[in-house]
């Protein structure tokens, strides 16, 4: 399910090749990590391998998958979105207020929430394109604006106890697996198809790999950028809907912890930070690894403060993997050039 905008560098020397292959195979590494961690947890704790707990992990992972995908699509295009959490917050407020304050049907409220998230993303993308600004500063400022609005409207008070016929989304199972997990997987499959077979997805990767070349090849980069940030906003909104369905309350700062995992999941899974190469499967497995780890830390009774430290170290480690990957692929390219 991984897709690259640039052809992978050719075969390489023995040891370096093994290192490079195992690390650039982000999905496999993430899967191996997840399996090892799950096995260790099953043996060291009584409660991890229980059916209820696996359901808890699946539900938490579903949200992390979608949050990771929201970041992955913009990374693929060579950008970043610091406003994923803030977008989730504003969507939470839109859904919560429509259902609780205005008594609007959950289906309509969810559609409105998804539209609000998509629109926020499109506006952010448009500001980046029209202003020629760096995605960093626009999404930093945009996130602040969205969070300010979400907090200003609600005075920082969540919408408690959303309607039961909405909460059913967070409780229901399908074939013994939580519905919200299915939704996360469904979104991932659609994205994987888009990045592999649809011209929109291919254009995102081409643009991320080399913006200038993409423009010279006639790709409408302005419209593409707006679409990518709109897609990111839509995914952030989907994550927010899944999370408020699971929690039963709509908090205006629902996404305040999303930033780290949004980068960690894709990078662990083999998405290239500089753009041009993404792995949907890797992001899903990276999110699974993070979900199991977060759950495992609870079962090991690790202090919540340690969790914050460990989260920081994980993203640094992911950055380290990325550096090794980049260096070995650069070395491989040099070798190939010499041979040519």
């Amino acid at each position: 399910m991984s897709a690259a905008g640039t052809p992978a560098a050719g075969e390489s020397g023995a040891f370096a090749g093994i290192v490079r292959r195992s690390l650039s195979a982000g999905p496999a590494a993430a899967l191996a990590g997840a399996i090892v961690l799950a096995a260790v947890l099953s043996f060291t704790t009584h409660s991890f391998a229980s059916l209820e707990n696996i359901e808890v992990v699946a539900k938490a992972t579903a949200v992390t998958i979608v949050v990771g995908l929201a970041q992955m699509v913009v990374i693929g295009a060579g950008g970043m979105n610091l406003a994923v959490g803030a977008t989730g917050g504003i969507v939470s407020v839109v859904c919560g207020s429509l259902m609780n304050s205005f008594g609007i049907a959950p289906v309509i409220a969810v559609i409105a929430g998804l539209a609000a998230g998509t629109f926020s993303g499109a506006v952010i993308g448009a500001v980046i394109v029209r202003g020629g600004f760096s995605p960093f500063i626009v999404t930093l400022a945009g996130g602040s604006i969205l969070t300010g609005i979400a907090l200003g409207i609600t005075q920082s008070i969540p919408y408690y106890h959303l309607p039961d016929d909405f909460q059913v989304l967070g409780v229901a199972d399908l074939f013994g697996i939580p519905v919200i997990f299915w939704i996360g997987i469904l979104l991932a499959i659609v994205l994987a198809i888009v990045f592999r077979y649809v011209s929109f997805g291919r254009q995102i990767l081409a643009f991320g790999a080399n913006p200038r070349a993409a423009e010279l090849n006639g790709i409408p980069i302005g419209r593409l950028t707006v679409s990518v940030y709109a897609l990111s906003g839509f995914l952030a909104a989907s994550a927010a809907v899944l999370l408020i369905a699971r929690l039963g309350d709509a908090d205006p700062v629902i996404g305040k912890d999303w930033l780290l995992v949004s980068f960690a999941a894709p990078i662990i899974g083999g998405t290239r930070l500089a753009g041009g190469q993404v792995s949907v499967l890797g992001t899903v497995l990276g999110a699974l690894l993070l979900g199991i780890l977060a759950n495992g830390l609870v079962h090991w009774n690790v202090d919540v403060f340690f969790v914050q430290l460990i989260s920081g170290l994980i993203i640094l480690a992911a950055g380290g993997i990325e550096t090794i990957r980049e260096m070995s692929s650069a070395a491989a390219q040099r070798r190939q050039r010499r041979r040519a």
Partner: protein
Amino acid sequence: MTAITDNAASPGSGPGKERGADSRGGLRRAVVGSEVIGILAPVVLVAAAMTILFPGFASPFNVDALLATIAVTSLVGLAQLAVLAVGQFNLALPAMGAFTGMVLGWMLQIGGVNWLPAVAIALAFSLALGVAQGFLIVVVRLNSFIVTLGLASAYYGLMYVVLGNERYQKIGAALPLIGRGAVGVFPNIFLISMVVCAAVWVFVGLTVPGRRLLATGANPLAARFSALPVKRTTIGAHALSGALAGAAAILVVGRLAVGSPAIGQDWLLSSFAAPVLGGTLLSGGKISVLGTVLGAALLAMIANALVIVGVNQYWYQAGLGLIILGAVGLDQLRLRLLTSGRL
């Protein structure tokens, strides 16, 4: 005031070239100089409007609070400016401030350290936090964005793990000089902050390491080919960033007589807003120390005015985002006018 333009190495020009200013250089300097005027004007305007409309604004109590906020925000802005100069960001600034403030609080309340060595140790500590960050970026060669994102979380985590979720409130008058004193209308922390700002201004504008900072940011490749110590300079920028964040935290601890994890929690946005308002380029290579201080003054006055008018702080957060976007927008416009040669 025109001397501040010496801090501007025009983007794209290699080191050394900036000395040979031709006739266009004079014009350019005038435009760059107007960036300081561009930020000074709204500062004066807001101050005048508030003084006329709200008598409470110019009261000694409010002026004291305002100057204290300007003192802290200026240093926070300069802490971000130090890394912006080399074309990088520091998302771990709030965590560095909180950690330093907590360490200082611990030393004063639990450790029984005298205030002067405690302040010195706190400064050295924050410097070390910055050096570690620069080390990971330059030597370990991790992506700079990922490093500061990760350290933002790791430093908070480490702080909580080592010191717990404490509030060191029994500091008392341990920081008498920094804490409550004032010279005339100027609170001590404002004067200390301005001395530090002046030192940074001299460092960036007049010393060789300071000039290297700008040369590295303007064009890292050209700097490397000119045999400038790019790696050492980048680590130095992060060290300076950490030390300035630490200095800001020390002022906060002195002012509030409390060391708590909440120090720095609202720094991140203003750390970008203050330099950007003052005409600093996010891409590196052009910074304005005086502009940053004036930017901090404008931010502090807007926040203060909103409190007086009775606007909710949440809307200030939304406004801050708009201010940043507006400031980078103006910058971009200015740059476009400059490069299109229509000036």
